[in-house]
């Protein structure tokens, strides 16, 4: 199968598409495919030209860390849990996330995610389980909080979001969900965090909710919004 990859050697070098002819199998993940191309002494593109190894980021290789987020056939996905069997068409096109500066090939710099969360000081600080009221309520709310704390900070929700551009004022779904977690776990911070939520999310979210479709942790952002918009 022909696999096209958008390459960029350094943050300032020009980009170029490079094609590779790869023997793929259905149960191969995109991460596996990239390793497969890289696992050769000499690597040739589909024109027979010698080329360099493809840079991409990984850590867990099982959908738990968000390192390998990239765009495959126009879908923002995690490479290690996207399989050839899930893709349509006769070619595969891989490019880095567009909303972050490229460091090298498919590796992008997502520091802005952390900078934004830090600028708004999104943190629980002190949780008192007895504050929540009845035990039944506590256990019921637990589920959504657990899902939110699984957020990988991978940036897929930002990549797909029509309102997120450079993260200067609108911080996206991952921010909204972390705000919910703080509001639920520390009542004394609820008012302050809701105001920040409004400023950096609620005010500009057009409710396309495409963020929920691509979230690898399947976080129900709309549940967080329902509470925080109240």
């Amino acid at each position, binding site marked *: 199968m022909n696999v096209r990859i958008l390459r960029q050697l350094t*943050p300032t070098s020009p980009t170029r598409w490079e094609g590779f002819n790869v023997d793929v199998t259905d*149960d*191969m*993940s995109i*991460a*596996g495919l990239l*390793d497969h191309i*890289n*696992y050769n*002494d000499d690597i040739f593109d589909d024109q027979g030209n010698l080329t*360099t*190894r*493809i*840079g991409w*980021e990984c*850590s*867990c*290789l*099982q*959908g*738990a*860390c*968000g*390192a390998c987020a990239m765009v495959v056939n126009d879908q923002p996905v995690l490479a*290690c*849990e996207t399989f050839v069997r899930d893709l349509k068409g006769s070619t595969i096109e891989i490019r880095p996330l567009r909303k972050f500066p490229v*460091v*090298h090939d498919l*590796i992008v*710099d*997502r*520091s802005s995610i*952390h900078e934004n*969360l*830090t600028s708004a*000081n*999104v*943190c*629980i*600080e*002190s*949780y008192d*389980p007895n504050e929540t009221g009845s*035990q039944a309520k*506590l*256990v019921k709310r*637990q589920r959504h*909080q*657990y899902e939110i*704390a*699984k*957020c*990988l*900070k*991978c940036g897929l929700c930002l990549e797909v979001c029509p309102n997120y551009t450079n993260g200067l004022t609108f911080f996206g779904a991952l921010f909204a969900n*972390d705000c919910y*977690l*703080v509001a639920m*776990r*520390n009542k004394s911070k609820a008012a302050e965090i809701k105001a920040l939520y409004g400023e950096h999310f609620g005010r500009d979210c057009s409710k396309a909710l495409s963020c929920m479709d691509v979230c690898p942790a399947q976080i129900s952002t709309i549940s967080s919004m329902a509470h925080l918009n109240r």
Partner: protein
Amino acid sequence: MDKVVVIGSGIAGCACAVRLAEAGIHVQLVSPYPSERSQSVMAAGGINAVLSDCEEGDSIACHVQDTLRGGHNLAGTQAVRTLCERAPEVIAYLERIGTVFSLEADGSLARRAFGGQTHRRTYYCGSSTGKQIVSALVMEVRRFETQGLIRRRLWSSFHSALIRDGRCFGAILYDEKSGNLMAEHADALVMATGGQNALFGKTTGSTQCDGYAAGKLFAQGVDLKNLEFVQYHPTTLETSQKRMLISEAVRGEGGRLFYLEHGERIYFMEEKYGDGGNLMPRDVVSQEMAATGRETYLDASFLGKDLIDKRLPEVRDICSKYRGIDVAAEPIPVAPSVHFFMGGIAVDNNHETNIQNLFAAGECASMYHGANRLGGNSLLAAICGGWVVADTIADRSRAGASPDFAALLREENQKLARMRDTSSVFPVMYIRDLLAKTMAECLGIVRNDSSLADGISDVDYYLSIAEKISYDPSAMMYANYSLVGILTLAKATLACARQRRESRGAHVRSDYPASQDSLCHASIVSYENGRYRVWLDKDKRYER
């Protein structure tokens, strides 16, 4: 002390950084990628502690006993006692900072059984305990970032320590974005770089844990300890790129190991060890599985879909996604794989190395686990160790002016530039693959002298070409310069394994199958002018 550099932002690094910041100390928290990418997020099963509402008959003394016995009496009694005594404080802390623990219907913290333990004392957060703890710790780090006490340095990697006359004054860091080395002077340096998966290639853990830092520090004169003790997790699932961990929680919930003989299931662990057989310590289970010489399976299907959906959803998802296996309907084919490193940087009970003001905590340090770690004890050790380091540093006065390291920095930058100017037909990753093969062959579950000797000569060969080959322009620079450190650690590991002429815990020698009382001491490896000297810590210079 006023300024500390912490290398690594997994659970150990974050716990240490936050505790230092709480004491008003300024911290640089260094890691190429954010905490969300660290191996800590992969910890699934839970964290051990004996709380006041513990299971009947359990006590902190039992936790200590289980840990020492599980570690085949190689861990330091006092160190383990401190670990277990502080465990309730760790859980209370994690709850206070907002970790989303699993709860019982009455709102109390839920706990489960874990291997090698006499009581149920493993607290957990669904099947993503590590991730939930990281999320809470990251928020705490953030709180101190906004106060200016912690500064995160992403895209930076450890290069080497600034050491002069047995004292540490900070570190040289490589900045991947600028492509330069820079000296970061500090009153103390804390290593929290995790385990050394890269030695073995395919493991259950993260590709970021490569052991470079330990290998480099060793060549700089830092002693390493107990490297031969590598934990093989008994239940992992083969996939093309890695071995997926099938959490011990499956057996904690009742899952059963078996192999097939003439179409009949033989529950070999239960046959040999009785009802608790499936939950024997990891070293025992892995060795028994290897001894069957057959394909082994883990059956959880009889637990039913509801329980699996509720208690083991991540295991269910891994099996179906990566291998198309329905855990509620069929057994999981499992085999042991490298999972955890009991060995690492040698530290004393304050987590300090033989170099003053150089500390290590978390999986990169060798502490608490002896010859075999109990599941649920390493998250505890990562946090507790991070705290011990921070408290020791907070009690210590400033180091005084740092010597001038400008010449060293210039020299190292020149070396890097030379590396950039070379190119070779052997890319770095190729040698790392060769190394992984060597290690798998020589340091499997069962070892012997001749294969360990072969391993050492293989690694010597890789080391001899490593200095010459170098730069692979398509890999990040770190991948290039880290190779020698990784190989050095591999050689030190093989040297320790060869020297320990007995079987104990995770170290099984076919040529020395019995344990020897006279060898019940930690092994230390020291770098002396290019020689690797392995010795037993009989006087308890380190962990006691």
